[in-house]
């Protein structure tokens, strides 16, 4: 059972989109239950609650019950994170509420996900909400979509119904340019096609939902990426008792993308100075090379000025340094975006003051149409331009989520008020 004896396929973060009515909570409950993540005392507690509410069977949706404030109002107000493991892979589910006013929650949940499950109620087919969730998932750059047509038990497990919904969805997907989609019929209530196949969907010969999840590629594994290393912290031990450490200058950060090894030629931005990687370390121990998502320390051959907010890249593949950006922005705050104000943009480990210079158009997430706009309110999504006080080292979001994303901070409250994806 220990970590080094079993095969480890790492970790997959995915998102579930849909409302309570689509059976989203039941689906998550079912995944947790069928992978034996739910322990006896939790189950006993929800059995009691189910009985109290007069239900015949255990209501698995209660497993995702959240805060007191939510129970009082009977709604979900925030993204919740759930965990399960199959022994070969660990999963983090971002469970986002489905209501229209919670676009910001879905964008938040989607920002760290590599796969999204879009739930459709088989009785209702493709709805406005389905289109909205799919569009948002695509916008936030989730590479893999699974369209789960749920409640098949309520349509007599009809293949015809399934095929009809699939055709409707594909027509829509073509229009908005979503490519990698898988379809699966299921009944979360009865557990058909989640972990077990069940007996009622014999006409479906594809993988179960869990099989799809187990086989899904992890983040950053699908194509080669350029090396991007935003510096978080500089280590200068200056330990007088240890002369070896006297000149130690370690640049600490997480590899956002790509890989790096000893001997590679690198450039430090913004000063543009070049050097060679002398060592790659974790906790002071040499590891020789590092890959995407690893948190490491880089030592360079030359003494170069480099501090938090700078970025180390491979010399032959430097990103653009820009003082103006065009981006798709989702506004997250109650107070609307104010053209007159100066905001703070945080991109990787770098901050810059920023001012809005224009709103190109707003996206109506229901009709998916572009509409003219001169302001942005909470949950609005728009294409906008900012001018910046400091240069940022950016890649288009579609190429690199790490160096294409930024958040907007209101300095008066310190709140995070916007999420941006660079075009």
């Amino acid at each position, binding site marked *: 059972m*220990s*970590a080094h004896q079993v095969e*480890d*396929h*790492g*970790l997959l973060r995915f998102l579930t989109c849909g409302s309570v009515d689509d059976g989203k909570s039941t689906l998550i409950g079912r995944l947790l239950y069928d992978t034996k993540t739910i*322990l006896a*005392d*939790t189950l006993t507690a929800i059995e009691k609650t189910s009985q109290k509410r007069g239900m015949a069977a255990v209501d698995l949706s209660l497993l995702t*019950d*959240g*805060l*007191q*404030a939510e129970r009082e109002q009977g709604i979900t*107000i*925030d*993204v*919740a*994170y*759930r*965990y399960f*493991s199959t022994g070969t892979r*660990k999963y983090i589910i971002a469970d986002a509420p489905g209501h229209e006013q919670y676009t910001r929650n879905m*964008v*938040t949940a989607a*920002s*760290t996900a590599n796969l999204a499950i879009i739930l459709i109620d088989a009785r209702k087919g493709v709805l406005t909400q389905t289109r909205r969730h799919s569009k948002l998932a695509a916008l936030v750059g989730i590479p893999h979509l699974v369209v789960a047509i749920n409640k098949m038990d309520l349509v007599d497990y009809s293949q015809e119904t399934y095929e009809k919904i699939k055709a409707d969805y594909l027509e829509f997907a073509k229009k908005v340019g979503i490519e990698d989609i898988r379809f699966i019929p299921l009944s979360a209530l009865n557990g058909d096609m989640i972990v077990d196949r069940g007996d009622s969907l014999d006409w479906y010969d594809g993988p179960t939902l869990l099989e799809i999840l187990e086989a899904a590629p*992890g983040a950053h594994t699908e194509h080669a990426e350029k090396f991007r290393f935003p510096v*978080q*912290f500089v*280590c*200068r*031990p200056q*330990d007088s008792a240890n002369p070896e450490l006297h000149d130690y200058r*370690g640049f*600490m950060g*997480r590899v956002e993308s790509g890989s790096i090894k000893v001997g590679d030629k690198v450039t430090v931005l913004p000063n543009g100075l070049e050097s060679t990687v002398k060592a790659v370390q*974790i*906790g002071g*121990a040499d*590891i020789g*090379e590092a*890959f*995407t*998502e*690893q*948190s490491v320390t880089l030592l360079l051959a030359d003494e170069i000025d480099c501090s*938090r907010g700078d970025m180390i890249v491979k010399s032959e593949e430097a990103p653009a340094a820009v003082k103006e950006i065009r981006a798709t922005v989702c506004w*997250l705050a109650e107070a609307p975006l104010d053209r007159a104000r100066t905001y703070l943009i*945080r*991109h*990787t*480990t770098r901050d810059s003051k920023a001012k809005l210079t224009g709103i190109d158009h707003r996206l109506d997430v229901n009709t998916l149409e572009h509409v003219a706009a001169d302001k942005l309110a909470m949950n609005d999504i728009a294409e906008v331009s900012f001018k910046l006080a400091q240069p940022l080292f950016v890649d288009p979001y579609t190429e690199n989520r*790490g160096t294409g*994303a930024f*958040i907007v901070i209101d300095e008066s409250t*310190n*709140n*995070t008020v916007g*999420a941006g994806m660079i075009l």
Partner: protein
Amino acid sequence: MTQRSTSSTLSHLDWLEAEAIHIMREVAGQCANPVLLFSGGKDSICMLRIAEKAFRPGKFPFPLMHIDTGHNYQEVVQFRDKRAAELGERLIVRSVEDSMKRGTVVLKHEGESRNKHQSVTLLEAIEEFGFDCCIGGARRDEEKARAKERIMSFRDEFGQWDPKNQRPELWNLYNARSHKGENIRAFPISNWTEMDVWQYIEREDLELPSIYFAHKRPVVIRQGAIVPVNVPLMSGELTNLPKAGEEIVDLQVRFRTVGDISCTAPVESAADDVAKIVLETATTTITERGATRLDDQTSEASMEQRKKEGYF
């Protein structure tokens, strides 16, 4: 320290570790005066290893701090001091008993659990040292209020958490900004489960206080829970005395979670090494807090309530 083998996909433990290191470095980079909360418990022991990987060969860019209820297991307190000394890092201890002397903590009765009163002492220590961020070892799988808390969680001047008004947290772009008097709580191992913690302890070969492993101990069975009795405090004084009529039995137990003596119960177990505990964790039928935290069972929302009042 264990290093991963080279490949392009990180194992789940490597990924979790890399995320936690990144979060600690963000705290160090963004906050002027952070502190790492270290109790001597298993989660905070993992946090220290993560801090070593994040900052060595340098010193940690923050001191360690323990809020001591005065009702902690000797083994854990001794381990706490030993570990801090081995690392050569500064350990600050602030005690609930000092808050009681000041009159800022008033127990309802002498036997009342001091666990929730740690909030008061914590807030006093934050003010005393001017900490702008406390790094804690809480995990989202522990409890449903924690499942919705941010990795960088904002607390107002009164230390309060407002679950309905949290800062959105996107990608790995953390916002640890605060005004003077306000505070950020940072949780680098938010995404870890109890199993991940034990697997990490095994992989990194981390030393733990002895009470995490199976040992014989006098206990009574009170309302279905195993309650340790006649537990010696650091002073040598015994606490958790049995009530009249209770039968003391010697059971083989281990602790899954370690906190204030008055509210932490052990489980029956013969697991005397980490590998056996990993196996037991994989096959257990009871959640960590359900089995062992007497304080969380009081009400369905008790953790949420405590967090709103400034708890870790």
